[in-house]
């Protein structure tokens, strides 16, 4: 460590460092084994060792002869996640700002959001399906499933905004106004730079929670599956490494999204510290 030394590390450091390392192995080990086994050869064994590495199971995925309609499910899951992300950012961020002031019903809306967060996904799934039936509408990924996903991503977004806006003291804005800045200048030069990394975090949550959501999608997508539902059916039907290949592909998509989000936060931080 390059930082100022505080003397010898206590023994607890080593105990906890070991715990942490074991936890990280526990967290990533299984994922890595799936990643490796998705390159299994024609022996189609679901376990180690890896024999004759090949890409055949990835090929299988995109040629839907034996497995389900993976490309189709992906073409629904991706736009759904993107729409959910956009709406989550807009709605959660504006709502976050509302909570900086006192307004009537604030407590009610807050507890409704928390309840929406902790309600079992399947319960809500039933509710939304029944609501759609009463209204005579059919369930679709871009209507009912979108709503089901929002009921889960928005409370998350709101909690993140609470954490972010907690750091934005109203005195910064007052100072800006006192110095004669217009509202637009204040938003652009004071509020946005502080809040922006948080907005990216909200977007990341909006995308990934929707992209991977299973219980809330189950009854609400209608007849055409999203990707997690497709994977769910595959867990029971498909007994080939194609399942692992699909796992690898979706995990890669998730990692690209995470890298984009974290990378842009880092870039903003760096640019900001460079300009001031």
């Amino acid at each position, binding site marked *: 460590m390059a*930082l100022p030394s505080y003397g010898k590390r206590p023994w*607890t450091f080593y105990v906890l460092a070991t715990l*942490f390392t074991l*936890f*990280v192995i526990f*967290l990533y080990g*299984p*994922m890595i*084994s*799936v990643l490796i086994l998705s390159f299994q050869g024609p022996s189609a064994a*679901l*376990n*180690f060792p890896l024999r004759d590495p090949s890409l055949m199971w990835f090929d299988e995925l995109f040629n839907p002869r034996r497995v389900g309609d993976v490309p189709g499910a992906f073409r629904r899951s991706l736009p759904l996640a993107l729409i959910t992300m956009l709406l989550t950012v807009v*709605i959660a961020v*504006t709502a976050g700002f*509302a*909570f900086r*002031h006192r307004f009537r019903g*604030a407590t009610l*809306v807050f507890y*409704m959001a928390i309840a*929406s967060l*902790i309600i*079992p996904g*399947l319960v*809500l799934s*039933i*509710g939304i399906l*029944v609501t759609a039936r009463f209204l005579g509408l059919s369930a679709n990924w871009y209507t009912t499933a979108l*709503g089901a996903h929002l*009921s889960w991503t*928005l409370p998350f977004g709101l*909690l993140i905004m*609470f954490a972010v806006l907690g750091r934005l003291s109203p005195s*910064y804005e007052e*100072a*800006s*106004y006192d*110095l*004669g*800045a217009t*509202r637009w*200048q204040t938003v652009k*030069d*004071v509020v946005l730079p*502080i809040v922006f990394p948080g907005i990216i975090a909200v977007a990341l949550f909006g995308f*990934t929670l929707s992209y*991977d959501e*299973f*219980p809330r999608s189950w009854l609400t997508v209608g007849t055409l599956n999203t990707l*997690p539902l497709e*994977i769910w059916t595959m*867990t029971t039907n498909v007994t080939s490494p194609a399942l692992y290949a699909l*796992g690898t592909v*979706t*995990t890669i998509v*998730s*990692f690209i*999204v995470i890298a984009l989000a*974290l990378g842009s936060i880092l870039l903003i931080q760096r640019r900001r510290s460079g300009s001031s």
Partner: protein
Amino acid sequence: MSAPALKEGRVSAATLPASRMKMTADSSGRKAWAPYLQVAPLTLVLLLFFAIPVALVVVVSFFRYQMLVGLVPDFTFKNYVDILTNPTNWSLYLSTFKFTIIVLAITFVLGFWISYFLVFHVRNLMTAIALFLICTVPFWTSNIIRMISWRPVLGREGLINQALQGMGVTAQPLDWLLYSDFSVIVAYVHLYTLFMIVPIFNSMARIDKSLLEAAVDGGASRWGVVWNVVLPLSKTGIALGSLFVVTLVMGDFSVVTVMSGGLSGSVTSGMFNDLQFLNYPRAAANAVILLIVVLLIAVAIFRLVDVRKELVR
């Protein structure tokens, strides 16, 4: 960190008083209705996709189920009586509670000590953030895939059995590693510890380090500091994390189904079965009971710790 642009002095001093007066008048006039407008979309979505559906679940739970027809409007307690008098449901609740308590205990211990390690032992802030991110990245990937990824590890011919037999520790593969209560708990801990780490880390990061030094100067032991300073000050995070873990485990059916190989069930998997026979009224009644149980637990947690005050402040 704040307002670098202000230093550039874009606004001339001459215009200052006028614009300032305009500003204050404007913003005080705006304050009254602005929050309502800002919170309206959220409220609308929550009403449409949370409040109304939940209300309808309650309504439907009193309906009658008829083969082939499905829902028949009625006001009957039959669904509830069915559920409450069926011993299978009681054992499902019992097994769900068992999983919840075990998982809560494990994730709390892991979450607390990992956060403690990151906040108080890692001396470089950037390292701490990087390690924290390593813990959180899997959260953003698919739960089902992460669950399945235990198969090649815990299975009969999996990595652990291969290793144990290779080292000559066991002669036969261990059967209880996969498709058992053990694998269900492993998967829960794998999936949900993140929900404990993030809020506890958040609470701990806000603790003023000088408090710890003061406690040590005052003669507190290392253990005393953890027990009397760190633990009470991270209670919001613990409460929030527990809320997540409890509700996730109580509401789960996919982990139990996949990881027990169909041997164990959960409250929700009972519902799942009803739904496959299109028995919506009984599934709804089951959902209402589960919802009441979950809400009672949530209320109890909120009673212990005022999470809202800590969050919104």
